[in-house]
């Protein structure tokens, strides 16, 4: 019995030590940001949230970079794809862990200001001179999207992604495609019959807020004024949200009520709605590059590309992390990679994005991608909103809740927007305590 106890004790003691060792040890990591004595190259870690077709495309671009440029610059880029929802959390929580933290992160321009204010991002000083690029090489919204109100650059433009209007060719002819919201309303009313709707307006946390912002910006409205005061309950904002509200709850509705998340897509693909709004990534979902004869077409959003008009869009930017990009050598290698991707962004276009570099749009290959044309036209006229404001993103989320509440008829458009502004101001008051 005593012998048995001894054996058990030794085994348990060993298990305990093993547990402690397992907890204490971390897995073997690639050497980050410095020369690996074993491999002799510098490792750059690149994080992004491109998890669909665009993710596959980015992987291919990085693989090509490593093959073509890796030896010349004695570097290798490792990609980590993390869903957007968790990407920002991971950037924050790994910011003090140099073994795990990335050097380059692709992120939405709308998040740059907040990330920079918390010291997470490094200024891209001298990037224009080092890479020999300037403002006229890039789409204006994307180029300016990386510069904050202090005049310093923290983002290098990769793409622009406006929201355009897909339509079902079986339900509408090319001649009937609306160029203005007034025409859109009329054509939707005419087409809404026999179980088919003009546009199935999603009411919950969806693309509807981007359409609302499209309407708002092209009518001269804003989310924040120049003093960062929330003004998305202005009279023009109420008017535009009322227009959307009327599509669902007006005298002549063109949309079914209570369209949930994804419900608009389902109705569109079932041939039960004429129009559907979404970003360029849907081109691949609909297979429009491979099948130009598809029954799905795409056109610019109404009132978005004419003189004096604009549209609300997003833009992915390359950013550098302040904790890992600690010397000029690493910084310059990151710049080289960023420029390579930018210059090879025809491939990126195939992933369903509008590259920010203008010269790409001039190539015959790019011009042959007919489905991207409306998005490209919109990108040249796009605005990204007041993204230089640190709390822009929270304001944007409040706009979303207000639009959702109006579309769900929980509040009238005016009440929904007033509540949205009040909620944002209250949130800000608590945040600044």
């Amino acid at each position, binding site marked *: 019995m005593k012998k048995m*106890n*001894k054996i*058990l*004790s030794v085994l*348990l*003691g060993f*298990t*305990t030590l093993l*547990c*402690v060792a397992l*907890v204490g040890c971390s897995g073997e990591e690639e050497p980050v940001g410095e020369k690996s004595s074993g491999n002799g190259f510098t490792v750059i870690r690149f994080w992004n949230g491109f998890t669909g077709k665009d993710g596959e495309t980015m992987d291919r671009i990085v693989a090509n970079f490593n093959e073509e440029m890796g030896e010349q610059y004695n570097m290798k880029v490792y990609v980590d794809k993390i869903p957007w929802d*968790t990407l*920002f*959390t991971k950037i*924050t*929580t790994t*910011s003090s862990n140099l073994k795990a933290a990335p050097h380059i992160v692709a992120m939405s321009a709308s998040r740059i200001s*907040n990330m920079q204010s*918390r*010291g*997470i991002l490094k200024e891209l000083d001298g990037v224009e001179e080092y890479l020999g690029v300037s403002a006229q090489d890039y789409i204006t919204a994307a180029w300016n999207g990386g510069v904050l109100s202090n005049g310093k650059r923290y983002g290098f433009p990769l793409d622009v992604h406006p929201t355009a209007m897909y339509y079902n060719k079986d339900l509408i002819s090319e001649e009937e495609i609306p160029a203005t919201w007034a025409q859109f309303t009329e054509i939707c009313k005419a087409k809404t019959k026999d179980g088919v709707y003009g546009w*199935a307006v999603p*009411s*919950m*946390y969806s693309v509807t807020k981007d359409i609302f912002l499209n309407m708002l910006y092209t009518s001269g409205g804003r989310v924040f004024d120049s003093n960062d005061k929330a003004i998305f309950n202005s009279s023009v904002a109420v008017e535009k949200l009322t227009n959307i509200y009327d599509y669902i709850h007006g005298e002549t509705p063109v949309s*079914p*009520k*209570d*369209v*949930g*998340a*994804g*419900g608009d897509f*389902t*109705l569109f693909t*079932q041939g*039960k709605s004429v129009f559907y709004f979404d970003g360029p990534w849907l081109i691949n979902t609909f297979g429009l590059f491979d099948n130009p004869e598809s029954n799905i077409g795409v056109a610019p959003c109404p009132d978005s590309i004419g003189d004096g008009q604009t549209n609300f869009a997003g833009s992915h930017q390359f950013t550098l992390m302040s904790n890992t990009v600690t010397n000029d050598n690493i910084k310059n290698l990151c710049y080289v990679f960023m420029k390579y991707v930018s210059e090879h962004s025809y491939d990126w276009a195939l992933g369903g994005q509008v590259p920010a570099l203008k010269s790409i749009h001039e190539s015959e290959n790019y011009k042959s991608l007919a489905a991207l044309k409306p998005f490209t036209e919109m990108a040249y006229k796009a605005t990204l909103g007041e993204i230089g404001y640190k*709390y822009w*993103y*929270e304001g944007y*989320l409040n706009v979303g*809740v207000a639009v*959702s*509440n109006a579309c*769900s008829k*929980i509040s009238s458009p005016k009440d929904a927007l007033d509540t949205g502004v009040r*909620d944002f*101001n*209250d*949130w800000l*008051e*608590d*945040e600044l*305590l």
Partner: protein
Amino acid sequence: MKRFNLKKAVPYLFLSPYMVFFIVFGMVPLVLCIVISFTKWDYASPMEWYGLNNFKLLFGAIGSGKVSKDFWQAVLHTLLFVVVETPILIIIPLLLATLIARCKAVRSFSMGFFYFPTILSITTVCILWNFLLDTNSGIINHLLGDTVPWLTQMPYAWMSIFFMSTWWGVGGNMILYVAAIVNVPQELIEASKIDGAGAFKRFFIIILPSIKTTLIYTIITTTIGSFNMLGQAQVLTAGGPNNGTRTAMMIIYDTAFGGSNNFGRACAMALVFGAIMLAFTIASYRIQVRNAED
């Protein structure tokens, strides 16, 4: 010098592997959470001492009152889920288990049938139900011949969450009950039959008291599980409409990992909510144990 007594040390050595994990993944985070709750910290910037302000915000003593309103609203939503869903996830599996436990012919099939949804991830389940419950093109409304706004209006959003959670969670407890009922001595049941006890009487007088330990265990774990509800509201309704299905776990997660990463406030929320959960669980345990002793 006192000699090392191996015999006395053996129990502790047996406990030590668990204790290591418990301390590293349980106690250390708890202590850190308490410390962080007194700070203002977004993980990236230096930690700033904040005193009791995070707690004052939660109780509406300072600030605009929005934090307090949102937090307690989310706590109420969670309590609603606990109060409604916990009994459902106890009673239905118990009834199903009673029906199939003694019937060998259908037991295996039924256990597999009802347990199957439990092995699916909550995300998969929510995506599936999102299609089924879609207002305008979902199968359920198609069968009903109506356009019930299951996910976009109240109270339907809660009804959808309850229904889906029941479908997803019923199998887990049922398996435990079947195992417990099968182990009830057959002689007891036979004796009660000879004494003229009917099915209902047998259930309440023989089966239920015999499986009380399992019952207490499932009540406590199901209560804790219901308090921790996150995935259903996050994926199926995104906390909507108008934050009407936003739960405590959601608001804690959003506060910690949303746009501004307010870890201090999130830790304070977690502690207050943890205290509520603990009080609820202890009360529930005591009531059950007292009943078991009676």
